[in-house]
């Protein structure tokens, strides 16, 4: 069951395909047989938002009690007066004000100084490490979410267990366990006006791909058609957000709305993943207003709307933001920030032990920094991811999800209520 997509491509694909064998197909066939049913509406859900481009954790969760923060950022620091204070030392960027009531309700927590033990400042390496869950190891073929799905299989048989929103399947979901990429829920499936004709064409393509040679084409199409069938029954075209939830215009709002839709449709969604970009603020980052502020405003509004829309269903939902690394403590020559090390993440939802800043704050003094310039990492991201998998989703074997790493409850931050 450990045959990964990468291993398949790397070592065996040519020979095996020419023999008509297909390890990925075999692996996935085994999944279909292995899952007993559980009531979908009782299932916990994790929503991961990847802030690609490295969000400036220091301007997202502002250490307004640190003089060094203001010294190093004369042009882009968020003034004390406009920070939404959390605990007297840290505060939310003013654009995230819509989240303050969630903090007060103890369902929002912020994790500071979190990141990778690997020192890379390459977006692509760091994103890869965060998605594979193996910092420093480039040969890992599958993502940690997919490995979780490989090893914890006590769930109903559903193609919607792990879903990425976007045209491409991200690394974090790649691997031998089935996962789905959906660009747009409304348009998912074959576009034929009449239902009978659509069903017929769907069956024809289904049959064509049943005989496809390579694993990825065959298994991806099978998962796709299964999902089409389930969506048809759930009928998402009739969806209206609840409680007047108002998602902001743009990709992120639309994606979170569709995730809420899938959660309420009870199709068995366990892990949803979405990208949200625009964080690589090398130039004119802005402070209370400006480029980063606009991105954070969209994030805050989208998360608040999602929370409102799901209402009581949030009792089983955790939303986690993540980003490959943080940015330099000192602003650069262009009123922006360059690639740094530790960043901040947000965890939101009923199961979150909220209203608290989690993790150990290393300080911003020169000797407290990583390589003299960046926020030091005091929490390995795997400690947080591992805790959420174990305490929220009920993962039993973190060792296989994060190979080469021994997660220990002693290092958990207490992000999930006990």
């Amino acid at each position, binding site marked *: 069951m450990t045959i990964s997509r990468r291993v398949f491509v790397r070592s065996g694909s040519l020979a095996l395909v020419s023999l008509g064998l297909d390890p990925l197909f075999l692996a996935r066939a085994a999944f279909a047989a292995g899952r007993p049913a559980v009531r979908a509406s009782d299932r916990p859900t994790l929503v991961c938002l990847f802030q690609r481009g490295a969000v400036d954790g220091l301007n997202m969760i502002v250490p307004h009690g640190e003089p060094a923060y203001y010294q190093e950022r004369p042009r882009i620091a968020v003034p004390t007066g406009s920070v939404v204070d959390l605990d007297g030392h840290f505060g939310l960027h003013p654009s995230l004000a819509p989240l303050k009531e969630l903090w007060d309700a103890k369902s929002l927590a912020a994790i500071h100084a979190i990141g990778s033990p690997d020192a890379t400042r390459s977006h692509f390496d760091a994103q890869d490490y965060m998605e594979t869950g193996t910092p420093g190891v480039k040969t890992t073929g599958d993502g940690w979410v997919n490995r979780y799905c490989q090893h914890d299989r006590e769930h109903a048989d559903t193609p919607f267990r792990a879903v990425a929103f976007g045209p491409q399947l991200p690394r974090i979901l790649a691997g031998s366990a089935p996962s789905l990429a959906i660009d747009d829920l409304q348009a*998912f499936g074959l576009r034929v006006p009449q239902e009978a004709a659509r069903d017929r*064409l769907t069956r*024809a393509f289904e049959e064509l791909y049943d005989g496809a*040679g390579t694993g990825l084409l065959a298994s991806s199409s099978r998962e*796709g058609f299964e999902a089409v069938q389930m969506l048809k029954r759930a009928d998402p075209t009739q969806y209206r957000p609840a409680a007047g939830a108002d998602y902001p215009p743009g990709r992120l709002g639309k994606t979170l709305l569709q995730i809420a839709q899938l959660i309420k449709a009870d199709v068995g969604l366990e892990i949803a993943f979405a990208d949200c970009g625009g964080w690589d603020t090398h130039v004119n980052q802005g402070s209370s207003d400006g480029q980063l502020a606009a991105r954070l405003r969209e994030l805050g509004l989208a998360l608040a709307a999602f929370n409102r829309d799901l209402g009581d269903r949030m009792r089983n939902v955790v939303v986690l933001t993540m980003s490959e690394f943080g940015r330099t403590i000192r602003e650069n020559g262009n009123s922006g920030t360059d690639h740094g090390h530790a960043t901040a993440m947000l965890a939101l939802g009923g199961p979150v032990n909220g209203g608290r800043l989690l993790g150990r704050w290393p300080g911003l003094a020169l000797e407290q920094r990583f390589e003299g310039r960046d926020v030091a990492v005091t929490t390995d991201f795997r400690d947080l991811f591992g805790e959420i998998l174990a305490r929220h989703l009920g993962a039993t074997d973190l060792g296989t999800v994060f190979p080469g790493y021994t997660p220990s409850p002693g290092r958990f931050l207490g992000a999930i209520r006990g």
Partner: protein
Amino acid sequence: MFALAAQMPALTPRDSAFHALNRLAYGARPGEADSVAQFGVMKWIERQLDADHVSDARLAERERAFKILEYDRADLAGRYRDAERERQRLQREAVATGDSTLMRDARPMQEFRELGGQLQQLAIVRAALSERQLREVMVDFWTNHFNVFVGKGADRFLLPSYIEETIRPRALGRFEDLLIATAQSPAMPFYLDNAQSVAPGSAAPPPRGSFFPLRRRFGMNEMPEERRQRRPTGINENYARELLELHTLGVDGGYTQQDIIEVARIFTGWSIEPPERGAGFVFRDWAHDRGTKQVFGLTFQDDGKDEGIRLLKFLANQHATMHHVSAKLCTRFVADEPPDGCIDAAVAAWQKTRGDIRAVLRAIFTSPDFWTPQVVRSKVKTPLEFVVSALRATGIEPDTSPRLAQLVARLGEPLYQQPAPTGYAETEVHWVNSGALLARMNAAMAIAKDCSSVPAIEDHAQLVDLIDRQLLAGTMSAHTKSVILEQLADITDPMQARALAVGLALGGPDFQKQ
């Protein structure tokens, strides 16, 4: 050639020709596998490598419809500046009057949005129609290797000259020339922020009229105080990092954070003129760091722009660069996980010729790895390759509407719109997933309606055989044939039968491969 012949017994001449057309070209047009086989596949490959001597009159005729090719960069820059000013004026007015419809109705940047669309359409027309297929494939390769995101500020109008004047003329030239050209093409220093990287403590000479900050010229609506504060005051590492990681040495190329800083210092002053002066590349002496820079065992000091040129020449011929770029080429042309043999052959040719791209490609195409039956039809097409090969196979003349570019975008590859400097990926794991496959099936059904390379004949068995020959050079699997025939069983209208059969063939698994 003996070794080559010994590796090829499993491939018939037509299979070899189809393979070459799938990899060096955007797929075969009907009958082309046979004609290339007859001409001699190695001879055809040589002709493709010698693109300048291939006549391309039909494409030239079609290119005339693209006004974008007549635009001058300075001209565009001026229009961009005007549009930007108009946008700012409208924005102020909208704020003052509270009328949010002003912006929506006037859409001052519309011209530049359409410019990006035209560029995409042009790329598809060229890929579909050019007789110099390998050059088009390489233009796409380098466009991704040296990726620039068209949506970033001034790159909206800088991209046409980047593609036409920087990438295209050098796609089959020398790597070193291409590398240097990209570094000096205004689109790149703007995209990777080098335009604003200046030596700490340096200051622009008193402006003649207008000068810095660049940003103001490129579209921020600011107050004077902010303007002053936003003047660049130090280095920006962005270009330096991607130059090493993506353009040359590769992420495992053995450089450090300190190396990146030194490289960034070397490139201080590599900038661009403001739009009112044409937005051309400029080396700003005052912004250049005159101090000593040490990197990769070399020392650079007070040698102005030549420092950067010297460094680029050095990087272009490092072993790590040769290996990184050769492996990437082999991933494109041979297999997602290319065997070492073809990479080594490419590196050897690179070394021997100091980076002559034709020689490197020739080494790959004559490597036994390129011709092993296992790699044939083993690669999944990218969205662009899928759409263009479908056009070629079905004999559809790409029109000038945005329809085809939108189709490629819907499949996940909106051309020139990759914000990350990596460009679009080449391998199957990035493109194959259930949602994307469904989108390809929809695209196939849409394209099939216009198919002109297969007549609508009544006999279903003959129809399917013909589709196999015209669209897949006879490589359609028995399974695909039988499924299509089954689906046709109760269809009597020949037009309807053809549309369904062609759609299933294009959307099915066989046509996803190359």
